[in-house]
């Protein structure tokens, strides 16, 4: 067991806490945790702090091993962790991305209001559930051949749009324009392909969901308007899923491969799940090429799901896409490693930024922010649990300086899935949500109990810390009225 938190962390200010390198021999940089004192006091944090310290062992890590306020205990890396390594002499770690490569969030606006949607919410949720394959063992409605899967690996969302699933405008407001460069299908093994083919175009299970939400707070009306969020009561759609078994298998294959590389390159690590290889090595390059394939698969996946969601809305409300105005606001990933430029000690440096349960948060003016948002900054999408809120925020210059352009990604678990299931029944969770005016359709009642609000931190506390610390700034809040869970 690790030490009590007060013996591990040192207060910098109300929202910043440091784990000094003296905490554990082998740490190359200090840990930096964004949190309030109230959050730090919980016992469930201590394992996560140990993991923040462990990540600080990675060769080439720059400045800090970072933790966002939604941090919780993961495997190897903490969830809510950010680590940047120098490309020239640092490492890349598949565990710093995780199994669900490019798990991410896509937010879509509509012209609909709560008053129009409420009377049909049951029908809408059922239509989404029928139209979008979800749940454990579900297979997609589209069947690609292996050659087409390779196209998906290289071209991501763009491939889906060219096949008629969505619009070019969707790609413009997708991180990396929905197709990450450097993807090489030759680096993806047969097992990942076999898992990937039937699961393309599926939501999956666990914490993945579709959420129909209503704007209930606006903090920055000008930025909101730029995103097409015009008024309180407006209905938005949030899609949360990733690269399914395709990404899981790529992670599995490369953690095993890089576990061997660690020995070859003489890297010493406190946790085998941190397995890594120099970015410049063939193993490191191969992982990044395969990871990019999974990232593109995930973007294509969310593109298909968006298309079926639009169809579902059209059918239920009897309106055309023009009338519905279902324009994508943004799509951002929160499990990824990206090569990005930063100024370190006055010098421009290329870094590999691992975001494991953390969202990119680039400021106004950054060249990777789409033109339509260039003057306000990149939209940051932060889903909460299904019973509370979700947030839209903006990336900032402070994030570039402090967190390698990163912020939080969600609420963060506080209760294990087992404990949630033991203390709550799925039927009771559904009833409690219904009382709050939230209609839920879930593939399994057990998964509903696992994902109950009680199992999560309050996302409002998380988002308030990132807002006050300045690494992302709040724009709008939505509350869910309908949810589809896998």
């Amino acid at each position, binding site marked *: 067991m690790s030490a009590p938190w007060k013996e591990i962390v040192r207060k910098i200010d109300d929202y910043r806490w440091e784990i000094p390198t003296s905490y554990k021999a082998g740490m190359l940089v200090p840990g930096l945790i964004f949190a309030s004192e109230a959050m730090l006091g919980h016992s469930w944090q201590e394992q996560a702090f140990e993991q923040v310290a462990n990540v600080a062992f990675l060769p080439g890590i720059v400045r800090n091993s970072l933790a966002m306020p939604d941090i919780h205990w*993961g495997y190897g890396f903490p969830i809510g962790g950010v680590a940047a390594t120098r490309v020239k002499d640092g490492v890349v770690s598949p565990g710093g991305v995780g199994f669900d490569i490019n798990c991410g969030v896509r937010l879509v606006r509509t012209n609909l209001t709560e008053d129009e949607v409420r009377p049909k919410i049951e029908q809408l949720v059922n239509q989404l559930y029928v139209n979008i394959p979800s749940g454990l063992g579900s297979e997609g409605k589209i069947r690609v051949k292996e050659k087409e899967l390779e196209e998906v690996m290289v071209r991501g969302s763009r491939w889906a749009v060219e096949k008629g699933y969505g619009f070019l405008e969707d790609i413009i407001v997708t991180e990396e324009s929905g197709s990450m460069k450097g993807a090489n299908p030759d680096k993806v093994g047969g097992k990942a392909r*076999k898992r990937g083919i039937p699961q393309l175009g599926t939501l999956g299970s666990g914490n993945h969901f579709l959420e129909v939400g209503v704007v209930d707070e606006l903090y920055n009306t000008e930025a909101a308007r730029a995103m097409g969020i015009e008024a309180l009561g407006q209905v938005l759609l949030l899609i949360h899923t990733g690269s399914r078994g395709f990404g899981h298998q790529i992670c599995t294959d490369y953690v095993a491969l890089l576990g061997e590389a660690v020995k070859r390159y003489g890297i010493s690590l406190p946790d*085998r799940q941190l397995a890594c290889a120099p970015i410049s090595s063939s193993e490191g390059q191969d992982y990044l090429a395969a990871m990019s394939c999974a990232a593109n698969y995930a973007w294509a996946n969310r593109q298909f799901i968006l298309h079926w969601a639009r169809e579902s809305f059209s059918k239920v409300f009897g309106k055309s896409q023009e009338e519905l105005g279902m324009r994508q606001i943004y799509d951002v990933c929160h499990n990824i490693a990206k090569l990005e430029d930063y100024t370190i000690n006055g010098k421009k440096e290329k870094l590999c930024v691992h975001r494991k349960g953390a969202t990119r948060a680039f400021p106004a003016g950054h060249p990777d922010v789409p033109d339509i948002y260039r003057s306000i900054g990149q939209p940051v999408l932060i889903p909460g649990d299904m019973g509370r809120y979700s947030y839209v925020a903006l990336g900032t210059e402070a994030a570039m300086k402090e967190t390698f352009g990163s912020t939080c990604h969600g609420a963060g678990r506080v209760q294990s899935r087992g404990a949630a299931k033991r203390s709550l029944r799925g039927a009771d969770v559904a009833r409690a949500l219904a009382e709050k005016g939230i209609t839920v359709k879930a593939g399994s009642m057990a998964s509903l109990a696992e994902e109950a609000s009680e199992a999560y931190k309050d996302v409002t506390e998380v988002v308030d810390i990132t807002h006050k610390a300045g690494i992302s700034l709040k724009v709008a809040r939505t509350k869910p009225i309908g949810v589809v869970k896998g």
Partner: protein
Amino acid sequence: MPINKDFEILDHTADVGIIAYGADLKQAFANAARALFSLITELDDVEEVLHQDIVVNASDVESLLVAWLNELVYRFDTEAILFKRFDISQLDDTHLKARSYGEKVDSSKHKLKTGVKGATYHMLKVDKTDGFRVQVLFDI
């Protein structure tokens, strides 16, 4: 310390771990596989309709445990097979050969519970000192 159970489930904030026991390492590896499928479905509902032979190799015994469980995750994900019994005929630190018995998922009788993304190396343990005991954390 004699233990009268095959395996137990460990709570973890985001994911789920298992500890499996055995009189020998083969039994502990077989029980770890049972524990994996107990997360996915109710083992009592699964019948032994088919079997598959599985061979796994790795560089050390801990990696072998992870590779064995990941091979089963892969077969469930691609062939929808629920396994419930594992007859491990060969096992040393780097090599495993097993015949696994179970059946294809039938939604009319199998309730699928938790999706398992993969077995991790975090908290991984293969303990041969006092009875055989193995520990693995899954990403779910």
